[in-house]
């Protein structure tokens, strides 16, 4: 297989708080291959959003990246100056945020917000004057058309509050895709949307991915979304990756007790009349975590050996798991 498009090794991102240092991301490895859709699943506080905010260079004080390498197409993003990073962000790699209403600027029209991307990154445009403005307007209208917003020309002059939730999410996708990035990071793109609109937005992302041949990272807490749209999945818990592999395999044969618990927690009509088996307890506090397995306190299978640090282990081709009861140690 060729080198991955995005290759993150040993990422560690911490936030200094008055109560102590919160280690939000601890030793995360991610690789995204060309053209694939990788799903990142985890509950609130698992570090899934912070991992990709780190990749985008969006972690601001009191947070900082403490260790790790982030290679995009072989280029080390952590070594870039802020100015160089700005040239990459929005052009080669783009991100859509969970809440489209707060992520869009309420004081600028949608057209102005899409135009910003072309203005910053598109060097094929005429240098100045009305020709440049017209070229940007045409390209912006084309983007709105691409994400399925009708009468694009007139809607460019409207403000975010004039659009519905699903339409705002489409606008964010249009902005993210304006410069045809190699990698799109979609952070909970459908969490705030109704199911019928969610289906439309996910279909749109999948369709555009195929058409433009880009890679997509889909961050979500919904295993159903991952099952239907992602080739591979990574499950995160308390700042670490605890399981990864091809989606169908992970869902059919989850190896980590947390993944199993998560799957058993989903209420579904097929389980009517049977008691649901929730994972007891809560996610541990990320301040001053002991070096043991992070799932120790909630795990039904925990034993003394779990009190030592647990490394990722190999569990078959392309599968890895962070549990001493599964897989083989890797060198």
């Amino acid at each position, binding site marked *: 297989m060729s080198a991955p498009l995005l290759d993150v090794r040993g990422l560690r991102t911490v936030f200094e708080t008055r109560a102590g240092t919160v280690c939000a991301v601890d030793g995360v490895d991610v690789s995204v291959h060309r053209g694939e859709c990788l799903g990142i699943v985890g*509950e*609130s506080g698992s570090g899934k959003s912070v991992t990709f905010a780190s990749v985008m260079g969006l972690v601001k004080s009191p947070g900082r990246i403490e260790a790790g390498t982030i290679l995009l197409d072989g280029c080390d993003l952590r070594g870039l100056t802020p100015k160089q990073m700005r040239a990459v962000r929005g052009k080669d790699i783009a991100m859509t945020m969970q809440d489209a209403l707060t992520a869009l600027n309420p004081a600028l029209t949608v057209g102005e917000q899409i135009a910003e991307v072309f203005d910053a990154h598109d060097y094929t445009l005429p240098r100045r004057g009305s020709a440049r403005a017209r070229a940007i307007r045409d390209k912006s209208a084309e983007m709105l058309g691409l994400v399925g917003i009708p009468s694009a020309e007139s809607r460019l002059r409207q403000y975010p509050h004039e659009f*519905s939730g*699903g*339409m705002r999410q489409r606008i964010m996708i249009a902005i993210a895709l304006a410069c045809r990035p190699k990698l799109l990071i979609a952070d909970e793109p459908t969490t705030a949307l*109704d*199911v*019928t*609109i*969610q*289906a*439309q937005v*996910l*279909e749109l992302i*999948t369709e555009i991915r195929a058409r433009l041949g880009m890679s997509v990272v889909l961050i979500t*807490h*919904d*295993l*159903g*979304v991952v*099952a*239907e*749209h992602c080739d591979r999945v990574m499950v995160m818990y308390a700042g670490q990756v605890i399981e990864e592999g091809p*989606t*169908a395999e992970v*869902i*059919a044969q989850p190896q980590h007790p947390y993944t199993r*618990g*998560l*799957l*058993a*927690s*989903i*209420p*579904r*009509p*097929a*389980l*009517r009349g049977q*008691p*649901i*088996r*929730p*994972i*007891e307890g*809560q996610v541990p506090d990320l301040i001053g975590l002991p070096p043991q397995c992070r799932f120790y306190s909630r795990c039904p299978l925990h034993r003394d050996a779990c009190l030592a640090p647990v490394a990722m282990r190999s569990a078959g081709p392309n599968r890895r798991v962070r549990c001493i009861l599964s897989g083989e140690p890797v060198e």
Partner: protein
Amino acid sequence: MKTLLKVESLSKHYEGRRGLVGRLTGAPHTVVRAVNDVSFSVERGEILGLIGESGCGKSTLGRAILRLHEPTAGRVMFDSKEVTALDAPALKALRRRMQIIFQDPYASLNPRRTVAQIVGLPLRLHGLASSEAEARAITARICERVGLKANQLDRYPHQFSGGQRQRIGIARALVSNPEFIVCDEPVSALDVSIQAQIIALLLELKREMGLTYLFISHDISVIGYLADRVAVMYLGEIVEMGPVEAILARPRHPYTQSLMSAVPKVEASGRRARIRLTGDLPSPLHPPAGCKFHTRCPLALDICRSTAPLRETVGEGHIAACHRLGEDISLLEDGAA
């Protein structure tokens, strides 16, 4: 089984404000028909699931039943008392028996009150405890039952996680020993593993205390798991209602079918063909004429654009409102959800 709650032709309309010109010229108010002519009943010990997308009026309906929002028209009967005709003291007395659990565990708890004060308030309002010590003991007992620790009673809501706050809201609803509870999306704001804990808790409590739930949700998986009967709402009206098995096995209304088709399923790996609903929910300010679903319905005919369909019985206890029921069309390829 005995009917506990009966809702007859209940409507809740909101009048919009008119501008100066509108008031001077006597222009009619714009009216949002949030709930329009809804009828159903809930048996004692049953869970009726109410499902629909945001803005369909499901929360308004739940609140109108408790008269937290005053209904515009229609009747609500609770245990053969007419809730909609009661005066304030009688309504207050009845509220001990009908309670609500809210969706947002952050906004529905007073940040300046401790857990003991929040949960103990219904006891004080209804005079259910003879002394402070007794109130405290009852509060402690119900808090322990919903999974809070005794040493947490004097803490404030911000010191708890979302799931624990929802437990506080549940304790508050249950402390007056009610018979009927409106659960207004109680698990929608929670993470998957916490959601499962709260669903398990609500089902245990229902069994132990003999409760009846109106369970409002937008998640057909949750409703399909726990409800006995389901009512599907679209733009203020119930478009289909029936036993959960019947609706899951063979949904008759095209909206129910598309709702079920839109839910991503863990079991079905890989992509499935879906019923594609185009467009957004129409504005309830200007609802479409005829069948309100016709603007998004893949089966719409001319008659759907002009005439609203009537409710028809399509099975035992199963009703639906659609002009094309007779043709028995299924948009779902595999029927089962």
